[in-house]
């Protein structure tokens, strides 16, 4: 898979195919999610794509009632809040994602350490221009 460039566009395309792909440094084995074109540990650009198993646990979170435009357009508001969190994958890296299947009405019941599995959601894009904002995109999320 070396011919696929280590770009955000490649990562997005994998997400669209419901695959969680990281870049692994061939030289020092460090694993990067989101994928990076240059290894932060040894600065090498010799990388390979690795599919992660999508299993992880919650390390930090919030429940948001006042979201940015793409979340408002997706139907979220004070009456219908959503959870965003930081997830530590079994393979090591951490990633930000929306967290589904947790008790957003009672955030005090949401537990750090909760086991999560990767899933994929569709929402509008992050743009100020309406034509670009309404283009649907697949995003990584996690299910409790």
């Amino acid at each position, binding site marked *: 898979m070396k011919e696929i460039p280590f770009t955000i566009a490649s990562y997005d395309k994998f997400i669209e195919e419901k695959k969680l792909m990281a870049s692994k440094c061939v030289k020092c084995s460090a694993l990067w999610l989101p994928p990076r074109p240059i290894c932060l540990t040894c600065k090498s650009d010799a990388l390979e794509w690795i599919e992660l198993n999508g299993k992880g646990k919650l390390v930090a979170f919030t429940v948001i009632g006042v979201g*940015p435009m793409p*979340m408002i357009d997706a139907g979220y508001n004070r009456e219908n809040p959503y959870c*965003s969190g930081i997830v530590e994958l079994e393979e090591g890296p951490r990633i*930000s994602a929306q967290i589904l299947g947790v008790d957003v009405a009672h955030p005090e019941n949401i537990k750090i350490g909760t086991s999560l599995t990767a899933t994929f959601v569709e929402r509008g894009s992050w743009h100020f221009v309406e034509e670009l904002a309404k283009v649907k995109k697949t995003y990584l999320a996690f299910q409790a």
Partner: protein
Amino acid sequence: MTQRKRKLGRGVAMVGAGMSPFGIRPDVTNRELFAEAFLDMVNSVDRGFDPQEIEALYVGNCGAEMWEAQSVIGVLCADITGLTPRPALKVEDACASSSVAVREGIMGIASGMYDMVLAGGTEKMSILPTNWTTMALACGSDTTYESAAGFTFPGLYASMATAHMERYGTTHDDMLRVAIKNHSNGALNPKAHFPKTIKNVMDMRKDQAEKKGKPVPSWADEMEFLHDPRYNPVIAWPNTLFDCCPVTDGAACILLVAEEIAKNFTNIPLYIIGSGQASGHNLHDRETLTSIPAAKLAAQQAYEMAGVGPQDIKIAEVHDCFTIAEIMAIADLGFFKEGKEAATAAGEGKTARDGVKPINVSGGLKCKGHPVGATGAAQVVEIFQQMRGEAGARQVKNMDINLALNHNIGAHGTTAVVQIYERR
């Protein structure tokens, strides 16, 4: 990273500082806010000076492109203050924009290029509706990975709060006590966005209920008021409205000169003896969620350059965009131990105006307001007034403030600037 001990090429001093009133300012634009700060700064220079001696401008601005549909704010600030054709550099580093501008100004003088520069920042934010302002601010995080996960700024700091609660047993009440403390300071600051204590706000709400003929809430104290979700709703759990700084319009600027000419302008110049700046990763890529690594690094650089330690600093203005941010800041700066000691410092009165380490005597971002591109320079304005004994009703009185510090964070810790000031 190997750190070379850094020092300024020559000494730099601050001889003037001013700010516009902070708040919702519907009738003025970025450049006019900056002009207000400029005039206030000119009046603060003890022996007066000819503004035409200013050789360059460094202007922080985070998002006029988004809020005013206007770029080149530095150039417009030069124009309105009569300083065209001097070079005007606009600096953007989210909420740290003006601290980075001040630091660039310091380096402009330290390098020998200039003898006198104007540095500060301006932000006009109240134009857009809340949803668009939320989005404009979120542009300071990594929109590809963090905003795409639904994170807003209150949400990113809320996540740090949940990690802090999990690791150290920090409570939401610990956080709310930071807000109570900063409002009690800001109530004495005539330029603050909300110059009111939380008790003032609570009493206002009671009066409003009474006037409208509604049942008057029977809160026993501020904490009970803050626990009432009808009056203090959740923004991004656990952050409630009163954990968050407001959306504010405002500007601030300072006058920097070469040390050897500082006494031409005042008998009490303030010398910049330490300066540090660092960048940081996205939240999910950091080794810790309960402190801000870039802030620790910037503090270390500033302390090393100044040859002083946290115990020597008398007062500090720190970046309290959210209450948890102040709890992390006072630990990252080495004033209190990370965890319970820092989390309970406000509640125990240690960071109060008459405490052992007064923090945010201006009211902080929380109460004074947070016009993002002006915030760092406004922190320095407070330090200028406090160190010279000119802070009026909120003047810290129980100590000789010969050393002070400001700590300004860009975004959720992807930039940090720490600077140390000395009165000799």
